[in-house]
């Protein structure tokens, strides 16, 4: 542990280092943004552009190691302020942050570099894979000078991932956070500043309301790569503002669901499957694109879908004690209450609907519906369980979200995974993972089916004369 981490371990007051540290009343101006970008670029040239991948990976892994320590001041601050500022309970935050930082090992980062770039030193020097060597060629990749991230902010992991990838790309980065959501990106940036201030000087963060034209124009004008997460309309509007020469990477609205095979619905497996399903519903309070809206349960197992739903309800009830959902805004409560009202009425009139939910709160809700059509959940731990004859019926039922699906979490026997995966790939899913891991994508996850790191970079090919 570097000495700098030993400083101020008990009380860390975040200094005004990033724009996002300024008091909420502070007004940002276009010229402040332009100046910040120019100074980021200068710092990058001086402190980041020529750094080795080895060194950057070392810094990232030390950083991750610190965040995983219980006495890390930044982790403590995240767990202290996160529940009020972000709406996740301490336990939910702990699980989410641990899952994220555990991914940041040297081995996994190297695996990402090799998988996407074909050579571990591709970012450092001209290098050749075996095939390239045979063909007398080499290549190097270069990151953008200034990368802008427009972060969504419902959960922090995507923003943190963007920053890690940006560091690997040796880019200066400006992260624009949605109002009220910058806490974790800020803490992450401050933690980097503690450990390696020069690298942190290549990062800037600010909060403002999306669509603030004057600030965004100034920001985009300085950038040569913009990544954005948002609704189709948000992305379209950002895309228009990005200068012609800059690369734009938009990650649109995606949904996810789960499929449970009848073959895992018995005895010992059943408990485990239920527990994993509950983990996916509770992780980040189901607020991410990777969280399941619907769990499809295949006919023919010892437990039918309705029984599965009842067991899942029991498990969610138990999780509420160990990992509470936490408070939600009034509009969310209203949304859940209104939906419960509808299913309560339907359940009273037909066995084709059944409802289980927390008493005296909106903390969790399970709706069983015989109608297999995909249904968007109102999230915050509100999940549908629907019976299907087989995977094919599940996919037909989810046809309305066919081109909008990110992850399908599956609980199927090992020997059928290849076949199930192939069917899901043909259908159009971009990620198939074990149930229980839906909200824990690996670092090398290809977001929306695109390479995470490689998409950010520019290749230069070098051909040797024979």
């Amino acid at each position: 542990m570097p000495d700098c981490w030993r400083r101020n371990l008990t009380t860390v007051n975040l200094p005004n280092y990033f724009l996002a540290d300024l008091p909420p009343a502070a007004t940002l101006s276009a010229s402040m943004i332009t100046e910040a970008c120019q100074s980021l670029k200068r710092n990058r040239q001086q402190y980041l552009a020529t750094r080795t991948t080895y060194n950057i990976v070392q810094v990232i892994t030390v950083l991750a190691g610190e965040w995983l320590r219980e006495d890390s001041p930044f982790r403590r601050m995240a767990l202290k302020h996160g529940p009020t500022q972000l709406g996740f309970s301490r336990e939910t935050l702990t699980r989410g942050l641990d899952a994220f930082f555990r991914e940041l090992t040297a081995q996994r980062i190297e695996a990402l570099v090799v998988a996407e770039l074909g050579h571990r030193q591709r970012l450092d020097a001209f290098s050749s894979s075996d095939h390239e060597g045979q063909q007398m060629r080499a290549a190097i990749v270069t990151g953008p000078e200034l990368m802008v991230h427009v972060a969504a902010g419902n959960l922090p992991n995507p923003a943190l991932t963007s920053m890690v990838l940006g560091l690997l790309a040796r880019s200066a980065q400006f992260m624009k956070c949605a109002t009220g959501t910058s806490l974790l990106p800020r803490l992450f940036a401050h933690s980097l500043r503690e450990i390696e201030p020069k690298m942190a000087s290549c990062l800037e963060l600010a909060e403002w309301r999306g669509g603030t034209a004057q600030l965004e124009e100034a920001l985009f004008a300085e950038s040569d790569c913009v990544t954005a997460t948002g609704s189709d309309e948000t992305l379209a509007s950002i895309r228009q503002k990005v200068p012609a020469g800059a690369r734009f990477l938009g990650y649109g609205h995606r949904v996810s669901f789960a499929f449970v095979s009848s073959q895992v619905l018995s005895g010992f497996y059943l408990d485990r499957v239920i527990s994993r399903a509950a983990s996916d519903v509770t992780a980040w309070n189901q607020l991410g694109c990777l969280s399941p809206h619907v769990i499809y349960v295949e006919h023919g197992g010892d437990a039918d879908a309705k029984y599965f739903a009842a067991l899942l309800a029991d498990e969610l009830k138990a999780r509420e004690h160990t990992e509470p959902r936490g408070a939600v805004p009034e509009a969310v409560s209203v949304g859940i209450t209104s939906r419960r009202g509808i299913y309560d009425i339907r359940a009273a009139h037909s066995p084709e609907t059944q409802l289980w939910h927390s008493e005296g709160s909106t903390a969790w809700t399970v709706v069983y519906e015989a109608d297999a059509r995909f249904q968007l959940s109102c999230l915050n731990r509100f999940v549908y369980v629907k019976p299907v004859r087989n995977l094919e019926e599940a996919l037909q039922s989810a046809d309305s979200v066919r081109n909008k699906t990110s992850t399908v979490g599956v609980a199927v026997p090992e020997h059928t995974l290849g076949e199930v995966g192939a069917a899901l790939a043909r259908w159009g899913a971009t990620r198939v993972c074990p149930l229980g891991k839906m909200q824990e994508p690996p670092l090398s996850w290809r977001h929306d089916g695109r390479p995470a790191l490689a998409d950010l970079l520019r290749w230069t090919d070098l051909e040797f004369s024979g």
Partner: protein
Amino acid sequence: MIAELTSFAERLRQNISSGVSVEFNSIALELFELQYRFNIAYRRICDARGLNPTRVEEWSRIPAVPTAAFKELELTCLSSEQRTAEFHSSGTTGQQPSRHFHCAESLSLYEASLWPWFENHLLPERAGGCPPHPRLIALTPPPAAAPHSSLVHMFETIRRQPGVQLEFLGRVDGDGGWGLDLESAIEGLQSAAAKNQPVVLMGTAFNFVHLLDGLTERNLSFSLPSGSRVMETGGYKGRSRELSKPELHHVISERLGILGARIVCEYGMSELSSQAYDGAVGSTHNSELQTRTFQFPSWCRVKIISPETGREVAEGAVGLIHLFDLANVFSVMAVQTEDLGVRRSDGFEMLGRAVATEPRGCSLMAS
């Protein structure tokens, strides 16, 4: 017809018409028992919640059904042959509307319920025995064009009262939406101004926007005779541009010369048979400086329920509005609305339709 319900309705109608206050709890429990017996869809809901007349001893525990249930179920004690009218909610185009079925007896009770409370708030001089003779103008279509609108039926009921002069100036457009006969409206306002005859303008918020935008386009404004007033209700339903309430009232004052204290807001819905008002015309409570609270008549009670806990909220806190309307005899008296309100000691403050969060994944939140 179910004799017990008819007799209940008749008793209540007489009480309301004669101004006799009702002993709410016992009458509510009596009605609950009848509705549990005769409204099959409602009984199923109560049974599913484990509640029935033997287990409910207080009106506030009577199971409330969400207004959405009026869309999916036939929440009525009336058989199909007994239904002579039905009121629909005015939702967004393409949505299935709520349906509230009526028969002659229930309409008669609806009419008896709406008139005295309207008169108290919009024509208080008349209620006090000193009848003014204002000209009432409804900006809605007439009943023949909008047979399923409870609001239009309400205006028609008012029109039929002795000594009331009311005309309808709205129309139903080709797409089924409500428009306004602007020329007639302008003519009506001009003639009232010329004759110095006070006007009572009544309609939905979007009716008023249609009128006010029309006046603005023609660069017209009126200073309507003193004693003129406005009754404004409901939302916009995408039928016009939307204004906040203070903005709407400001434009009304600007274009029609009717000040805030003479603008009365009404809160009603097709699923109910009673209405609430946020003050009487010209009353001191109606000043713009104060928070205006809505009040229902004595035969309708309100509870403000926390959407998170399902329990009644404290004074000053926000929740979903639950209503217990004794005049809903042949349907369901206990209704859970989708409107948010603030509990106030003398009524409730309206915050408007709760925007139920649209389902969304991570990326819809980037703003």
